[in-house]
C-alpha cells in the first residue's frame, strides 16, 4: 500500500487498510440464504437491485451535482433491453446484463446532452423527468414488442448454465453483480475522474481552469450512471420476471431520489444504506394499512431535517472509516 517515493502518513494508510473491512459485508451476506425465508430473500434481492440503482443515481445527483431525473428512464431501458433480448433473441442473462449496461449508458449519453447545453437546475430536472415519462409512453405504445400494460413475461434467466429459478440463486448472482459495480464505481470516484465530477459540482468554471475538459466528464458521469442503473434494470427484470411500464413511473424516480437523500448524497456507503432503509422500512410498515406511504414520508422528512447529509453521516461520526475521500493512497 505504501508509495515508494514518499512515505505515507500512517493515519491515511491505516484508513485505506481499514477500508478492506468493507469486503466483509458481501462475505457475511453470503450466509443470508441460510437464514432467510423465500419472502425475505426476495426483499434482500430487491435491496440489491436498489443498491445498484442508488449507487448509479448518486453519481449524477451527489457527485456531479446535477438535478437530472432520467434515472427511471435508465432503469426502464435496462429492464426492457434485458427482457426483450431474452424473450425475442434468446439471450442468456449475462449477455442481457451487458446489453442493458450499453443501452443504459447510451441513455445516459443522450441525457447528458441536456446538461451540456447549459440547461441546469429546475430546467434540467423537468426535461429529464420528461425523458423518463417519454420512455414510459414508449413501453406502453410499442406494445407489439413490450406487450404494453400487460407486461412482458420473461423466461427464467440462467447464469452460465445455472438456472436462476429461485430467489437464492438470484441472490448470489445479484450479489456478484452489485459488488462488482460498487467496487468499480468506488475505484472511479477515488481517481482523477471522480474528482473531476465533484469539482464540476463545486465550481464548474474553476474546474475548467485546471485544464479539465468539463464537458467530457459531464458526459462520462451520465454514461456511467446510465450504465450502472441500466444493469440494475436488468436485475429488476430478472427478479420480477415480468416487466411493466408502470414500474418506471414518476413515483419510481421519487423513490430513487429519496434513497439518495436519505442515505447521503455523494456517498456509496450512503447509497446502500438509503436503498436498504427505503426498501425495508416501507415494506415492514405494509402490514399496517396506509402506514407504508406515511412512514416513507416521515423517514424522508426526519432525515432531511435532522441529518441533511443522510444516514451515512451518523456512521461518519462514529468512525472515519465511513468518510469517503476522492483519492486513494
Amino acid at each position, binding site marked *: 500500500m505504501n508509495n515508494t517515493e514518499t512515505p505515507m502518513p500512517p493515519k491515511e494508510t491505516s484508513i485505506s487498510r481499514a477500508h478492506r473491512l468493507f469486503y466483509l459485508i458481501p462475505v457475511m451476506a453470503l450466509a443470508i440464504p441460510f437464514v432467510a425465508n423465500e419472502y425475505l430473500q426476495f426483499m434482500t434481492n430487491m435491496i440489491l437491485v436498489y443498491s445498484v440503482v442508488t449507487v448509479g443515481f448518486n453519481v449524477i445527483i451527489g457527485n456531479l451535482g446535477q438535478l437530472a431525473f432520467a434515472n427511471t428512464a435508465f432503469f426502464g431501458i435496462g429492464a426492457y433491453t434485458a427482457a426483450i433480448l431474452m424473450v425475442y433473441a434468446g439471450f442468456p442473462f449475462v449477455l442481457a446484463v451487458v446489453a442493458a449496461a450499453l443501452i443504459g449508458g447510451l441513455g445516459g449519453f443522450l441525457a447528458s446532452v441536456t446538461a451540456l447545453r447549459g440547461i441546469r437546475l429546475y430546467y434540467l430536472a423537468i426535461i429529464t423527468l420528461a425523458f423518463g415519462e417519454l420512455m414510459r409512453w414508449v413501453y406502453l405504445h410499442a406494445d407489439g414488442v413490450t406487450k404494453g400494460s400487460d407486461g412482458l413475461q420473461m423466461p427464467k434467466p440462467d447464469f452460465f448454465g445455472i438456472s436462476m429459478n429461485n430467489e437464492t440463486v438470484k441472490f448470489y448472482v445479484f450479489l456478484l453483480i452489485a459488488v462488482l459495480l460498487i467496487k468499480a464505481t468506488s*475505484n472511479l470516484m477515488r481517481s482523477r475522474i471522480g474528482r473531476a465530477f465533484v469539482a464540476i459540482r463545486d465550481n464548474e468554471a474553476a474546474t475548467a481552469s485546471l485544464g479539465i475538459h468539463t464537458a467530457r466528464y459531464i458526459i462520462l458521469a451520465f454514461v456511467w450512471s446510465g450504465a450502472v442503473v441500466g444493469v440494475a434494470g436488468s436485475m429488476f427484470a430478472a427478479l420480477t420476471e415480468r416487466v411493466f411500464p408502470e414500474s418506471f413511473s414518476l413515483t419510481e424516480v421519487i423513490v430513487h431520489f429519496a434513497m439518495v437523500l436519505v442515505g447521503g448524497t455523494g456517498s456509496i456507503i450512503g447509497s446502500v444504506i438509503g436503498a436498504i432503509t427505503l426498501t425495508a422500512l416501507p415494506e415492514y410498515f405494509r402490514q399496517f394499512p396506509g402506514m407504508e406511504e406515511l412512514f416513507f414520508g416521515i423517514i424522508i422528512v426526519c432525515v432531511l431535517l435532522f441529518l441533511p447529509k443522510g444516514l451515512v453521516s451518523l456512521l461518519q461520526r462514529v468512525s472515519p472509516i465511513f468518510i469517503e475521500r476522492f483519492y486513494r493512497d
Partner: protein
Amino acid sequence: MDPLLKLEGLTVHFSGLKALTDVSFDTHAGEVRAVIGPNGAGKTTLFNAISGYVQPTAGAVHFKGDPIHGLSPHEISSKGVRRTFQNGGLFPELTALENILAGLHTQIDGSFLGIILGTRAAREAERAGVARARKLLDMMDLGFLADQHVKDLSGGQQRMVEIVRTLATEPPLLLLDEPFVGLSPPMRIRMMEIIRKLAGEEGIGILLIEHAIDLVMSSSDIIIVLSSGQKIAEGKPEEVRENHEVLEAYLGYA
C-alpha cells in the same frame, strides 16, 4: 526576449457595453505585472478574455507566440496559462489535498478502464499524484490542512491553497485575480513575498489584478492602469504614481 503573453488590440463588447477597448501589452517570464483600475474598469473581463471564459470581440492573445484567443478555458489552461478567481475558485466540499489533486489532474495518468478495474498501474499513478500533492502542500507549510474541507479554512488559508493548486502543474504564466483581497496585513506581506519569489526564483510570469494601487507598488515590476475598459497608463510603479492622467482618471483628483 519574446514576450510570454502578448495582447494585441484586445476588445470585448457585451451588447453595447464596451468592457474592454483596444488593450495591448506584453508580459514576460519572471516579471510581475499588475493591472489596476477602479470597479468596472474591465480588469476581470481582461482576465476572462485571456483565459477563455469570455470570447474577445476583436484583437488577439498570443501565448509563447501561439494564438490562444478563441480556445476554451481548459485548452488555455493546458497550454500553461493558469488563473485564480476573485471570489474563490476552490472546491469547498473537497479537502485541501483533493483540491490540489484536481489541480494535478492533467498530470495524473491512468486510463478509464485501468481506473475502473483498479489496475496496479492506475493505482500507482494515483498514489504518485497524492504523494506529489502532499509535497506541494508541505512546501507551503499547509500539510497539516491536507484533510480539512477547504470551506472550513480561513480566508488566507484558502487563498494559499488556491495558489498551490494553480501552481501544481508549474505553469509558465499565472493570472492572479485580486490575490490580496480579504487577507490580513501580515498575510498580505506573505502573499507579496510569494509572488516576488515565484517570479524571481521560478521565473514565472505573473499578471495580477488589484484594486488598490498601494498594494502593488512594492510587489510589481510594471503597472498597467485600466479605466473604462481602456489602458490609460503603463510603466514602473513610480512612473505610474506620478502620471497626471492616472491621478485624474483613477484616483479622482488632479
